[in-house]
Structures are given as C-alpha cells and as structure tokens.
C-alpha cells in the first residue's frame, strides 16, 4: 500500500516537473523587443454608413493581416478588411473594437489572410495610370503575379446603376446596388502600371511588338482569357517569353 502511494506521488511529481523542463528548453525568442518597439497604425475612427444594397467589402470578414508602413516598419497580426467601394483599409482595434479607416498615405502594403481559403493576399499602395482622366491615381491593388511583368487587380466595388428596395425600420427605401468592378493593371518592372482587360485583344494591344509570339504561346497552351485565373496564367507565360528573350 505504501509502495503504491510512493509510486503514485513520484509519478505526480514527475508530471508536475514536466512543464518546468519544457519551459526551460524554450529557445530564446526574438519576439520580445519587437513587441515593445512596434510601430503604430494611424487613422480615423470611422464606421462607413450602410447606404447601399450589397457589400462594400472585398472580403466581408476581418482578416488577420500584416501591414508595412511607408517607413518600412511592420505592424503584424492586426485585423483588417478592405473596403473596395471607398478604396480604403479598415482596422478593427483590439479591445475597443472600433473601426479605423487607416491613413492610406502611411501604408506601403498589407498582407491579409483570406479567412475562407487561408490564402495570403498581398495588396500594394500602387500609383497607377488613371483610366478616367489624365495623370495617375493611388489605389490599393492586389498583387496577382510578380515578375518582370507584374499583374495587379484593383478590387474596386461600385454602384452598378441598378436600384433595389429594402425595408429599413419598417419603411421601404430605395438603395443603389453595389457590385464588383475589378480593374487589372500590368506593370513592366518599375514603370507606372497601365490598365488591361482580361481579354486576349487587350493583352495584344499592351505588347504590340510581341503580338505574334504571345498569340502563338497562348494557342500552344490552349489559353482563352476569359477570367482572372486565365489572365494570371497568360501573364506567367508572357513572363517566360520575356525571360527567354523571345
């Protein structure tokens, strides 16, 4: 009986010691100073009003993200979501759960993890050719393919022109409908990105001097540019052509 108790207490003693041993083996973490010397996000405490039918957000839910500021400092593990209607990035403050419209001019890029697919999406604060007026504009554009020729998409959300009626507090209210209107941009090395449509003709117009090679390559790979995935594939092939000097 006494022997059995001894064994039992010895086992318990070993179990209690186990975590101490595990903690002692923990490698020295480098995260300490970074946690203290982190940069701060900055922006307006603002909740966009709901005045449309449809979502303003590229991804509806808050996504765990990292932000790189224009200073090069990084802010990690923050909850963000991108508003395609305003082309603004919103931060959900920890603890107080306020929505903050981040100061766009202080952000170089952000990287968010799609809560649905777990995919890492990189957005850059990019200066692009304005398609509506002369000059350039600054937009948050998602990087779809990086290479000599990089492909970006501005996940724009805009009013479709249609209206719908919704009940708000017992009253029927007419609301304009929102829908995605993605705009693709191609950037050759560090040149100002130019707009492109996800269509073979648009691609040919962008590279007039390589028309024949592109047409051949697309035929060879049996690519018909009808959607985003096909456009990305086409740009990959064009990058291969550029790399091989064709």
């Amino acid at each position, binding site marked *: 009986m006494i022997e059995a108790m001894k064994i039992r207490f010895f086992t318990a003693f070993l179990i*209690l010691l186990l975590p101490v041993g595990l*903690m002692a083996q923990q490698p*020295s973490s480098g995260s300490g*100073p970074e946690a*203290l*010397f982190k940069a*701060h996000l900055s922006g*307006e405490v603002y909740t966009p009003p709901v005045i449309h039918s449809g979502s303003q957000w590229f991804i509806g839910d808050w996504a765990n993200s990292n932000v790189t500021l224009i200073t090069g400092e990084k802010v990690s593990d923050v909850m963000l979501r991108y508003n395609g209607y305003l082309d603004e990035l919103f931060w959900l403050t920890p603890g107080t759960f306020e929505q903050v419209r981040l100061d766009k001019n*202080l952000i170089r890029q952000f990287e968010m993890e799609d809560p649905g697919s777990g995919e890492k999406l990189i957005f850059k604060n990019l200066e692009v050719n304005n398609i509506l007026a002369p000059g350039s504009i600054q937009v948050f554009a998602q990087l779809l393919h990086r290479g000599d020729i990089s492909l970006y998409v501005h996940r724009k959300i805009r009013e479709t022109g249609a209206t719908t009626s919704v009940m708000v507090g017992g009253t029927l209210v007419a609301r304009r409908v929102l829908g995605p209107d993605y705009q693709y941009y191609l950037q050759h090395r560090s040149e100002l990105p130019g707009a492109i449509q996800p269509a073979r003709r648009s691609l040919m117009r962008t590279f007039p001097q390589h028309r024949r090679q592109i047409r051949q390559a697309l035929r060879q790979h049996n690519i018909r540019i009808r959607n985003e995935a096909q456009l990305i594939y086409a740009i990959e092939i064009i990058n291969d052509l550029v790399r091989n000097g064709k």
Partner: protein
Amino acid sequence: MCSVFLILTGLLFLRPTASAASPLNSVDAGSGNHGAESLLIHTDRDLYIAGENLYFQLYLVPSQQNQAPSRIAYILLQRITNENIETFIVRLSDHIAFGSIYLHDTLPTGNYRLLCFTNRMRRYEGNNYITKPIFIVNRFDETLEKISTARQDIDDQMQEEFQDKRDHGSQNNKVKISTNRTTFGRRDQVDLSIEPKDFADSIAYLSVSVAQDKSYVFPDHAFSGRQVLNRQPGSIYQNKSRPGEVFAETRHLILEGMVRDKNTGIGLEGLRVLLSTPDSLLNLQYAQTLDDGSFYFAINDFYLNKPLYLILDTSTMNSPALIEVADRFATKGPEKHEQPVFSAGHDEFIAASQEYVSIQKVYEINHQSKYSDLIKNKEFRPLVYAEPNYTVYPEMYEPLRDFREISRELIGQLRTRLSGGTYTTRMLNYQTAYQFFEDAPAIFLDAIPVSDIHQIMHLGTEKVKSIEVHNYRWAYGEMRFAGIMAVFSRNEAWRLLELPESSKVLEGMSFLEPSLYYDPDYSQATNTQATIPDLRQLLAWRPGIRLTSGENLLIRFHTGDIKGKYLIRLVGVTAGGEMFSTVSEITVE
C-alpha cells in the same frame, strides 16, 4: 482517480505561463556566461600628449548563442578616479567600429582608460566591461612628477618582462609580418607585407599601428578584452546576470527609463510615455510602462542630434509620477587600473613629444581624415498622420495679435472659450460638420505635446508659420484624439514651453563618426610637404583590415622626420573570436 486528477493537474501546468511569454523575460534567455558577446579594443598607442587624437578600433566578438550581434557600442574615456571625461556612442558595421577621440588640451597628466561595452553586456555589470588603459601627459606639464612616481614602482625584472612582451606580441603564428628593410631613412617608403599563416577561420580582422617604441607603456597592450573571451563558465558572469532588464541594440539605439510614483518611488505600470522631438512635421511615439514601471523606445536616426521630449500622457495617470531615464554612461567599471611601465628614457621622449605636438599645432597639422563611407541607418519620422485635413498660414491674412484671435478669425474648426480665466477648446468633427467633439483636441507646438493651450496663447501671426488642423476622431495605435491641432512656429517657440514636472527633456544623441589616420605619401611629394616638418610619432594606423586566409596584404607608408626605433603592431581577431598579435621593429635613421 487520484492519478487522473494528478495527471490533469500536471497537464494544466504544461500551458506556457504568462511570464514565459513576457517580452522582457524572453530576451537573451540563456545567455549570461560562457560565449556571451564581448568586445576587443585596440588603440594606435598607449601614451598620448593632451591635444592629440587617439585612434581606436573596436571589434565585437559575437555571442556563441546565435544571437543577433549588437550594432551599437559605448566608449567612455575615464580618469583613474573612474570619473567619465567624455562618452561616445559608436556604430558597429560587420562587427567593427573605428575612429578617433580628441584628447583635450586641458587634461591633466595621469592614468586614464577607455571603457567599452554594448547594451547587451550591461546585463553583467561594469566589472566585465572591456578596458584599455592609456596614459595622457599634459602638453604644458614640465615637471612630469606622475611619470617619476610611476617609474619608482617598477623594478628591473618587471621592466624586462614588459619589454619582452611589448616587443614580441603573442607570436602565435597566425600571421607573419615583414618589411622590405629594417632600417629606413627620413620620408622613406616602407612596404609592410602581412601573410596569413595559420588560422582555422577563413577571415580575420586586423588593425596595424606603427609608432615610436616608447609610445607603448602598458603590458598586455594587444589584449584588451582577452580576459572576457577566455572566461570560463561559472564565473562572475553567472552571478551578475540581470535578465529582463536590458535589450541588445541590434538595430537602433534603445532609450530606456522608468516611471515612478512621485511620493512612494514605486514603478508605475500601464502609464503612457510620449516621445517627440521639435520638427516641422508632427511626429510622436509612445510606450506603455511595464509592470515594474520601465519603458523602452527604439531611437532611429531621425532622432539623432535632436532634443528628445518625454512627456507623460495625463489621461493614463492616477497619481503624480516622475520619469527617470537610464543613464547608460553611469557606470564606474572595474575598480582596478593598470599601471604604466616607464623606462629611464621616457622623460626625454615625453618632453620631445610635447614639443612635437606644439609644433604640429603651430603648423595646424592634423592627420585625422574623415571616413567617407559613413554608416547610416534609415531614418523615419513616426508620423501621426500623413497630411492634415486643413492647413492655415496666418501670414496670408491680416496680422493678428495672439492665438486667441488667430483661432477665432482663421480656424473655423476650432472653438476657444475663456471662462473663469481658463481656456477651453473643442474641435468641429469633420464627419458631421456641425458637431463639436466632446473632448479637447490634442495640441502640439512644433510637434511637442502641449497640455495647456495657455502656453501658446501669446503666439501672434508673426510667430506662427502654419497651423495644421486635423478634425477627425483620430486613432494612433491605442491613443485617441478628439481632433489634432499642430502649431508650427517661426522662432522655435517650443523652447519656451513650460513642461509638466513629470516630463523629461534629453539632449540630442549622436554617434561618433568614423575617421582614419592620414599619413603623407612622399612618393608623390609636393613642395609644401617637403618644407613642413613631419613630426609624426605615429607613422601609420590602419584599422578595419579584413584578411582572408591565403591572401597576402601589402601596406605602404612613409617614415617621417623623427629618428629612432618604431614598433609595428598588428592586432587581430579571427571570425571565430580567436585573438592574436604580432610585433615587428623598424629603425629610422
């Protein structure tokens, strides 16, 4: 049943505890004895005349525990009383820093030393800091009493031992040095070849000095730092360890301090300390005090040479508090000072050196040259906003007497009321355009937070350059502002700000810029060089030499006009931290 309970209890403990995850506890965990980061310092000479430059090379022997090496080191010039005379901060690039320290004319004759450490080394207290003894003679000291006194303590045997050590170095065959001849004429060319012999590591870092033999007066000259490198586990290092208080400066300078209760002196947790510097753009950093009241800021290059304002955020204060800033240079270092070994000929040597230095001063000869490849880290302002919502330039309007008038006439978004001798301000919310925020806006003068608007009320049009109005409810990290007004003055009005008692203003921090020793090249002598006396006692000083295994190096220099025996001293350390030195001799006739 009892076993199951005990197992579950044990499993509960498996969860990492809060203290294990605490940032401070995790820093440098496990370091603290054998293989910790250390420094090695080598100077051009041991004996100097006040008014000369001292040239040094600092080498960081990295920790053997895969920690990122420190990039910042501290050098203190101390008297024998351990009193600091001057303090320097140097940047290490590829583990090396070199430069020069001007020894002021007014320094009295005596024993001095350089005390070196990194912030990481501060964990182990001053006794493990690296020291390099030097002896400085005042240029106008004719009695040289201290030298006679020092000489009395040296017997013949000590003298011989010292000379033997001085003249042969460690001779551990890591490198071989040789010159094209052993005897040279005045302004003659000397070719010094350095041949790596036997070092296991493929790279070594060296410095070479060529100076008159009597310029070396301390034994063990080459090995300042050896005692630490050869330390054994279980030494003083373990006992002096202060984990959780010191960060390694692997990128930026770190400003550290404490916030204490004014009455009890106890460290206060959770207070917000604001850091800003006078500037033409609104910059602000903040830090939250930890459980012991300590706070830390990373000081990037933007803050260099600028006054630093540390102000407590009153919204986080419950009782009167005071900010204390840790003084990195408040260290005495080891008590023991090494004694110089002077020989009989030193009186004449020093008298001649004093004269040489005086002559060089008359001719305004300075051998210090700036190092062109300066290390500069990225500097960035921690901006609160990229652009203000509105900017008002008062000079574009009729002159206004004071800020109350400016506010009333020019800043429509600001409401300032005087009631019972106290001003209250509120800012119009941009989002509503008709509602004022309930709280007062944050006010800054030249980027310094102003807690009381009274302090800027005297500013009229002629003193205000611009006023930035940012009338949003603004978030900056955890801080919230009910609008921001940043006033920028023409005449550095921030200097007149009366800060709360709890605040602290620090003078600008700066790095010692690297510099080299310039020695004339007589192979292409110009007439000017020919007529000016060349009274160099230091013929050459070459720091930062990177020697690769199997690759010979040639160093070329010229002798001066002073005849005598010169020692060529090479001090090096392999990439693995093994030190070596070699000495050779030449004569100038």
